[in-house]
């Protein structure tokens, strides 16, 4: 890592906004590194969780929001449980994902993760429970990998792990009500699964990848 941090970056209100919005004190972090030490996904991350905390402290918003780390975080909460300064790191990661989504600064390689999250939530909103077939189908369709994990389908079907028809929750109205209210709170654009530009780029990238494979 080689960065240059200007006075304006240091004075930016990134940390203050984060602390106000998600209620977690990033300023408490003293860089012991326990979060990174226990993180099961750190080997794939571009910045370790403790580095993300430090970057937030220094006001480096652009670098943080465009990092892969926040999308790779599996929210396993190992870091949160072990943090000696009582910072909910997973919660902060979640906040950073929301912020990055809002600002549409998601790195190209990681567009699938917010897409998956979105489809998953939509699924719940529609049926009250997870409809596996719908999720898989929708995800494969929108991510551009139409036959991903297709070979597993018959086996799972026979073992009744997935079904053709969705199960519906009993009080679907109440669940929808939850979505309605929380949607209002989050000001999310419900009708859009992902920013069309990104969706297009994603499909385009996959397509190019396929062509290159054929070559």
């Amino acid at each position, binding site marked *: *890592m*080689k*960065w*240059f*941090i*200007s*006075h304006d970056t*240091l*004075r930016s209100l990134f940390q203050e906004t984060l602390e106000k919005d998600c209620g977690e*004190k990033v*300023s*408490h972090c*003293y*860089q012991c590194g326990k979060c990174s030490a226990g993180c099961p996904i750190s080997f794939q991350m571009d910045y370790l969780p403790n*580095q993300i905390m*430090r*970057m937030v*402290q*220094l006001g*480096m918003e652009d670098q943080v929001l465009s990092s892969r780390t926040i999308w790779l975080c599996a929210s396993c909460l190992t870091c949160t449980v072990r943090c000696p300064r009582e910072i909910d790191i997973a919660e902060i990661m979640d906040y950073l994902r929301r912020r990055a989504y809002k600002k549409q600064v998601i790195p190209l390689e990681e567009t699938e993760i917010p897409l998956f999250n979105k489809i998953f939530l939509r699924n719940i909103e529609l049926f009250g429970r997870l409809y596996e077939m719908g999720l898989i189908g929708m995800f494969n369709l929108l991510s551009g990998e139409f036959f991903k994990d297709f070979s597993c389908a018959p086996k799972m079907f026979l073992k009744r792990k997935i079904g053709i028809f969705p199960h519906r929750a009993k009080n679907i109205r109440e669940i929808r009500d939850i979505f309605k209210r929380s949607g209002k709170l989050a000001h999310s654009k419900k009708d859009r699964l992902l920013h069309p530009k990104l969706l297009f780029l994603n499909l385009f990238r996959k397509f190019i990848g396929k062509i290159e494979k054929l070559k």
Partner: protein
Amino acid sequence: MKIGVFVCHCGTNIAATVDVERVSQEAAKEPRVKFSTTYRYMCSDPGQNLIKEAVKKHHLDRIVIASCSPSLHEKTFRKCAEKAGVNPYLMEMANIREHCSWVHQDRVEATAKAIELIRLALAKVSRNKPLEYLYIPIEKKVLIIGGGIAGIQSAIDIAFANYPAVILEREPSIGGRMARFDKTFPTLDCAACILTPKMVTVSQSKHVTMHTYSEIEGVKGHVGDFTVTIRKKARSVDINKCTGCGACYNKCPVRVPSEFDMGLGKRTAIYIPFPQAVPNVPVIDRQNCLWFTKQKCGICKKICPFEAIDYDMQDEIIEEKFGAIIVASGFTQFNHAVYGEYGYGKYKDAITGLHFERMANSSGPTGGKIIRPSDGKEARDVVFIQCVGSRDEQKGLSYCSRLCCMYTAKHALLLKEHNKDAQAYVFYIDIRAAGKNYEEFVKKVQDEYGAVYLRGRVSRIFEKSGKLIVRGADTLSGAQIEIKADLVVLATGLVAQPDAPGLARMLHIPYDRNNLFTEAHPKLAPVETITSGVFLTGACQSPKDIPDTVATASAASVKALGLMVQDRLQREPLVAKVDAKTCSGCFACIQACSFTAIEEEEIEDKRLKKKRLIAKVLEGVCTGCGNCTAVCRMSAIDLEGFSNRQIMEEIEAL
């Protein structure tokens, strides 16, 4: 001569490796040995009773105890011998534990060695002479060098025990560094509010005498009897007549930078350093006073209603006797002139922690406003740089100054309290907040006062359009950082006073390569020195914060009082002795003695029928190190208890 040998098992410490029974039997065969036995723990009460009974029963007159190191139980067995009716110096110890059983595995060889060690002890004890304890008188007065918080606390403790104490202070007022501070970490008590009551206690105590504006000229003598020469610098104001009304310094026309305010404020030529000064008597700075420089003015003398001003006052040199000396000479700030990259002297807005302390003080030169000294504007972005001088082997000190982390955190907090819009940036290498509530304090400053802590040293400071550009790095994120600062505060380290080595030589106490005074033992004798009767307190020994300083001050006072309460001082008679007949008066011994325990003495030589000079050992000072006996070409000096004959006898027994 009837010698008794007592072999100790020390549980299994000795008995496991050494065949103690055989050792005892072999020892009994030695000439002059009348009695020999073993016991599990010779140092225990039954063990000591065994010795006493054996002495009585067999009429023993010398004792050899084969056990542990004399450094552990020599005193125990000397007392035991004394109680048994044998002169305590007719007892010898053979160390068959540290020197034998602990360092060997082979039982046969270890046993043979133990027997050999006992034979040596037997040879030595046969040449021992009965010695009597030495007693030296004690002057019941304590000198305290330095009137800072360490000296003040020592004086209070000694005065509380109703013993007289004398504070010697170089500055016109006592109070030292602490008087300059604004707040104290981590509780944020106002420094003056907790210090001035102590200063007043000292000034009102009938047991404490203060020599302010005075310097130490020389020290002679030894524990219980130090003769100290003190130079009382000419104050030009009669301390007995002055009431501290302040008429003189209110009218003085001269304005010079105030040393107390680190040059940030002005004072007059006749001045008191700060309003709560003790004694509240002004002093004339002769370098700047118009009367002394140009023979003009003289307003203060005209205006003084008590005729206390005396321009003709001369330095006064007095001699006083003391029984003990407490050194509380304190510290000074590291001179950061070596750091050209931090703009020393070039940029007015790069100041030290002590400057900041004066600025933050509401009675200071800026009335508690944190300003830029260059243009007087309030500082908004303030960069603090820690470890200036400390932990820098190339340009500064090898050690950590211990306080800078804490006082910088305090400054960052004070900055925010004085100016809500201000932002503190702290460059640090490590945060060393090891003290009660210290870590919590630093965390509070970071969490609640929003100080930005950046891990890294600053590389350079330069000026650009009225701001100081600070180039640093944050090694936690791996980034280079640039801050446009209004003010830069350097947390300079603590160093010994420049004249500390001179004082150390005067007192015959050692000092280390950083000119800090060396304690007798870093763990078990932290306030003593190897010169008995001289004690250390405060930052002259190592950088210390106020709680540690006060603790060592009380510790040193207790040590000094321990001497004061004794009628006379008992000392071991293991000292050097001069044979007047053979001493040729070459005085090589005087040079060899590190304790100045030897002086010249004139005697009437009956053979030569004339007076001549020979060496004389001051028994009160001699520590029995043996340096003099080694250099004496006439073998005229001998060490009692370790005489040349005893040592030779031991060697021959080998």
